[in-house]
């Protein structure tokens, strides 16, 4: 295998001599990468979180619609949260490596000198002091920012866990802590986003445009302005502790297994965080057991008065029963008052006479009698029963006797 097939990242030079200016390495490639991944997850979390906090705002609504609905917004928020937590696990490793393996000075730790620097800065701004305070690798502004992010991340992870896993939380804590966690999560988010805009953007974009997070380097002029103590240390060769390569190699052998376990546990923790519980059913809960269509029994309609049943001993004469049968079944329409179709069955004479379509009864000839013709066709209102029809037919065949 040739050398070129295994390209090794060339470490960036600590000092870069360029025509006219000297530059000092402030953030390595990997530190910059960490910043940008963190920045991306922070921005996505801020955006997708604040639209949930202010869900009824017009702007939020259009954002949510643009992303394809609130479920997608929550999904993206959760993914960004996982990314951020993984960056935190990495960051702990990177810090641990610098502190325990390379044994660099813990330059990010705040101290009383930072309080002094803040007061001196104010005095300088107000014209009560001739010069800015002389600060080292991290100014009090940067430390405030870093530790604010640490504080914010801790709060967000804890409250985020409580909201992500409310059932598990309520096993150990009062239920009220979950909406309280939501309140804190939202308040902290608002604070973080506004602080980034006000504090971070002012310091790295507005007051000067700080390129170190893009290309890694600060010019000597900027170093003199912002980190004069660090610059002096670099020039004196005491910015970093002298390292013994053999010792570093030994420490690495201890650090990496320890960190691997630690990081493994943390990643397991993140996995548990994400999959701890199934908070709610994903199906539609069954509806109440109610029959939607459950009709009441229909209101009984009036029962028709009993029709005069043709008695077996019906005497087959007009006066003996035929008149009575016609009266009960036909008189509604063909009574003396109504005479529909000109037919009046209330008397023997008018029955024989019939109506518009012909004689009602033709003695001896049932098939010529309209009463039989109409009734035999069926479906007539006031339909005679088959038995009744047979009896009337017999009566007509017998000459339709009146009495």
């Amino acid at each position: 295998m040739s050398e070129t097939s295994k390209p090794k990242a060339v470490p960036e030079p600590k000092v870069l001599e360029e025509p006219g200016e000297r530059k000092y390495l402030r953030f390595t490639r990997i530190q910059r990468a960490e910043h940008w991944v963190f920045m991306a997850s922070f921005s996505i979390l801020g955006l997708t979180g604040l639209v949930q906090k202010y869900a009824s705002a017009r702007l939020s609504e259009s954002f949510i619609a643009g992303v394809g609905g609130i479920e997608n917004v929550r999904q993206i928020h959760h993914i960004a949260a996982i990314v951020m937590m993984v960056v935190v696990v990495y960051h702990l490793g990177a810090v641990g490596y610098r502190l325990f393996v390379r044994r660099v000075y813990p330059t990010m730790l705040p101290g009383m000198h930072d309080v002094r620097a803040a007061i001196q800065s104010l005095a300088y701004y107000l014209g009560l002091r001739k010069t800015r305070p002389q600060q080292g690798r991290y100014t009090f502004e940067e430390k405030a920012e870093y530790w604010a992010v640490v504080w914010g991340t801790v709060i967000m992870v804890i409250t985020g866990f409580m909201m992500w896993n409310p059932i598990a939380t309520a096993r150990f804590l009062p239920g009220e802590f979950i909406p309280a966690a939501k309140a804190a999560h939202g308040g902290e988010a608002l604070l973080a986003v506004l602080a980034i805009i006000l504090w971070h953007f002012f310091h790295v974009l507005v007051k000067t445009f700080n390129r170190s997070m893009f290309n890694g380097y600060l010019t000597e002029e900027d170093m003199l302005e912002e980190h004069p103590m660090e610059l002096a240390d670099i020039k004196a060769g005491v910015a970093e502790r002298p390292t013994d390569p053999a010792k570093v190699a030994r420490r690495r052998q201890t650090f990496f297994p320890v960190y691997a376990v630690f990081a493994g546990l943390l990643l397991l923790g993140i996995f548990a965080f994400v999959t701890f519980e199934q908070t709610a059913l994903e199906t539609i809960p069954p509806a109440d057991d109610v029959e939607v269509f459950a009709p009441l029994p229909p209101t009984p309609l009036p029962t028709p008065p009993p029709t005069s049943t043709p008695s077996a001993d019906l005497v087959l004469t007009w006066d003996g029963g035929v008149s009575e049968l016609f009266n009960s079944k036909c008189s509604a329409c063909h009574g003396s008052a109504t005479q529909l179709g000109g037919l009046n069955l209330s008397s023997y004479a008018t029955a024989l006479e019939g109506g518009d379509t012909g004689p009602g009864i033709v003695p001896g000839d049932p098939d010529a009698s309209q009463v039989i013709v109409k009734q035999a066709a069926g479906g007539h209102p006031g339909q005679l029963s088959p038995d009744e029809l047979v009896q009337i037919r017999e009566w007509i065949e017998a000459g339709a006797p009146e009495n």
Partner: protein
Amino acid sequence: MKRKHLFIILGIPGLALFALFLSLDRAAAELEQPASGAPLTGGVDNETCLACHSVPGMQMTLPSGEILYLTVDRETYNNSVHGKGGYACVQCHTDLTGYPHPSLTAATQRDFTLELYQSCIRCHQDKYDATLDSVHQKALAGGNKEAAVCTDCHGAHNITPPDEPRSRIPKTCEKCHSQIFDLYQDSVHGAALIGEGNPDVPSCIDCHGVHNVSGPSNQPFHLYSPQICARCHSDQELMAKYGISTDVFDTYVSDFHGATVVLFEKTAPDQETNKPVCIDCHGVHDMRKVDDPESRVIKENLLVTCQRCHPDATTNFPNAWLSHYRPSPEHYPTVYYVNLFYQIFIPTILGGMGIFVVLDGSRRLINRRRERRHERNQ
């Protein structure tokens, strides 16, 4: 003298004509409202029909074997809205202007109803059009002949105003939805309407609509339903009468469930969701007073209600819901004080940062101006 004649000749007929127009106009106005589009009577008056059809027990047998009752009670019809309005039988039964009547095409009682209710459309087109969006018409179009049509709710020969008294409304729905009625009549709303005749509580149609009746099978109804409840429950004046909070909708929307549902409703109102709306916790038709031991949302029963969707929930879990309270020192103090903390903390931190930023920025501007002046002076 001539002038007087002229007045008599022109004036009197003129006045008469004016009076005639006036009376015609009034007659037209009277007719306009109910009878526009109503078919003509064809000169067949109701007595002609009632001569036969008032006879008790008049009936015929349909091909299905069912009995079709043909008797119309004169009193009942005359007391109905149409009877009082003087409408003629043949304005609905337009095919029955002569005798013999044309033979029936319907094989069953139901088919007969489904043919005949079309008569309603002639005068009540707008109401009919509204029903086209209803669950009933959709079911009918889907082949369910039992689905309610005009006459199933309003009656036929006996139509009277359906909301007199108002408690008649749920009774009408009960005819087909008896199980739901049973739940409703014991609910806080139903008991007040049916028992006390309370005019403030909703009857069926206040939530479901009148002719365009919708229900959970119309999906937008489900996501929209909290806004139906809010119509009354956000009404200060109405709720004050009963000492009920008007915060219920706003507090619902500010919580996870409500915020989600409202967003769903705006972005995709048709989607199914398991995020609860009011009725999912309070009951669909059997919502109770909050001090009713049968209420699903009183403290004793709330866990069971939560568990419908959160089966693993334990005792503390229901308290994660703020019970429609705005956090205060009395109700949910932890939430209240967390909010209070951030209300103070955020301005303090940002204010402090702001002082540094403004002073730092100003100093830089002052220095720059000085430098420039210095350069110019050199």
